[in-house]
């Protein structure tokens, strides 16, 4: 009985924290659907893939969004013609490369004396993983096209330009508000269902595994510290503003393991995975999942070796 109540507490906390941001994302999605002209995106974005993807990855600095809200918004942006690779870059990097998260990461690690390293590494690795995954997706898109996306996310045909203009003239404010609310409620329901399911799974996982277990496990098996932390990030579904503080509490773990937790978490966790199913088809989800996981793993291992090679301890400063 107590376990059930603990489970409900964990579930409710994940749900109610994310819900306002999903609502925000849904409203933004509604506004975008109604007001954003399809042609605008194609006009202002660079034609080549790499610059577009880099811009996408850095968009979070201008449009900060929580990882939950971003999925909702991104589906509508895709429909409006934002290139898939660009969307992926924004979706993956946005929750890390934004001022709120950078600041909270800094604050979380400040008293441990490794704030600068953690912020720089988190942002840097997040950027690399996002751009890499976006480029891989780009290659896949060239091969499979819109079959990678669910029907709602598929870009509309651009030749309806003239139609768009005609209709705009005839819509009243009430019509527009009606449309925005329609889209918003639709997207909200769509995504909220997956949030709830994800929160249930995450809360279940938490009844079985505590962060302490992971810390102890990693102490016993140092080579498995990075995958263990990645697994924990996946299961815990933490908001990217809070996860820095949780990672900081793992005081005995190496920088590389904490980094893995902080880079993977905002990109991939149970609730995100479920939300992806409303935007991407399984093949694309598999691509994103494997690319992100392998990139994070390799990059964090790289960081670990770098530290070892230079004799840096990678732990909060001990006795000086």
């Amino acid at each position, binding site marked *: 009985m107590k376990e059930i109540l603990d489970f409900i507490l964990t579930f409710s906390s994940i749900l109610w924290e994310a819900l306002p941001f999903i609502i925000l994302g849904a409203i933004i999605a509604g506004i975008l659907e109604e007001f954003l002209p399809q042609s605008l995106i194609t006009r202002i974005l660079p034609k080549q893939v790499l610059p577009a993807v880099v811009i996408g990855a850095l968009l979070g600095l201008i449009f900060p969004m929580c990882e939950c809200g971003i999925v909702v918004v991104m589906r509508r942006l895709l429909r409006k013609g934002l290139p898939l690779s660009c969307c992926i870059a924004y979706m993956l990097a946005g929750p890390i490369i934004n001022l709120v998260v950078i600041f909270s990461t800094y604050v979380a690690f400040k008293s441990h*004396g490794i704030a600068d390293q953690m912020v720089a590494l988190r942002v840097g690795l997040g950027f690399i993983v996002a751009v890499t995954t976006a480029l891989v997706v780009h290659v896949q898109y060239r091969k499979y096209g819109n079959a990678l996306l669910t029907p709602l996310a598929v870009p509309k045909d651009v030749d309806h330009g003239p139609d768009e203009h005609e209709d705009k003239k005839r819509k009243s404010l009430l019509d527009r508000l009606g449309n925005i609310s329609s889209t918003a409620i639709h997207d909200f329901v*769509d995504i909220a269902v997956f949030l709830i399911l994800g929160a249930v799974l995450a809360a279940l996982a938490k009844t079985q595994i505590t962060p302490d277990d992971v810390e102890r496990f990693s102490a016993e098996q140092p080579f498995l510290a990075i995958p263990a932390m990645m697994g924990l990030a996946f299961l815990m*579904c933490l908001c990217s503003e809070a996860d820095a503080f949780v990672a900081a509490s793992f005081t005995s773990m190496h920088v590389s393991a904490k980094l893995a937790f902080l880079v993977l978490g905002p990109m991939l966790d149970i609730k995100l995975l479920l939300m992806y199913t409303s935007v991407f088809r399984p093949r694309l989800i598999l691509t994103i999942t494997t690319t992100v996981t392998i990139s994070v793993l390799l990059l964090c291992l790289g960081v670990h070796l770098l530290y070892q090679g230079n004799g840096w301890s990678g732990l*909060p400063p001990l006795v000086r």
Partner: protein
Amino acid sequence: MAHDHDHQGSEYYIEQLFTILVCGALGVVAIRMYQTDKLSLVLAPPFHVPVLIGGIAILALVALRAIALWRESGREMAHHHDHAHDHSHDHAHDHDHDHGHEDHSHDHSHDHAHSHGHKDHSHEDHGHSHDLSWTFVRLLILIFPVALYMLGVPNAGYSSDHLKKLLANEVTIGTVDFSNVKTSGAATEVRFNDLNDAAYDPAKRESFQGTFVELTGRMHKVGDKEFTLFKLKMTCCAADTVPLKVRIVTQQSLNSFKDSEWVHVKGQLEFLEVPGTSRYIPVIKATQVEGITAPPGGDYE
């Protein structure tokens, strides 16, 4: 919508109505949870107002949608009467945008390329099925948080079993020297965060070392004369709760105390090395440990 409304119209409206009701219920629950302060159990204070705003926003959206639906059903009646006339370009555009925003719960490409001739209703294009059962599953899932609220849960913090799990791996600090320990005088109230931060900084450790302090928290026994004094820290939500800890050693046995009990501790603060590592933790050599009632602030620091 550009398809046969005769037998599907009512299904569509029923589905929309239920969606509005459920979303509305969620909005109301959000606002009520804020008003009755139930949110303090699950979320850190900075996240309370967003829930309130979210609830109000959903209600606003639901209201707008209800109005739009009402107008749409009015238009629908008129359209139905004019059904027989030729389907002009105008008509096609009406449906264009209706498609865009009213086919909810269905995945469908807003396929403007399809013919607006009302004969041509290959619903495969849209990929939606007016499948009420799937819609109801989704609404049921969405109702789950509303149901929890109505059941009155969650209504307490984490159980003591859960707290024990969070502290399962505490290691004893070994025997401690109690000679020359202050036993009286003015005690400085300290905070968990300050002590744990200081553990990493030699200069700070110096400044705290030997001071007579007092601190309140819950007890988690580590040995007969040693326990971890803790409080919980919630950064965003209950799910990310971590325990803030300070080790307490006493000269008397702790038999009269129970785990998870609230206690007030006074003693001399020192930073001792954890055996087997080169890390320091804050330790209070306690001269006074007394049970107290739970403080108004509750579990969270």
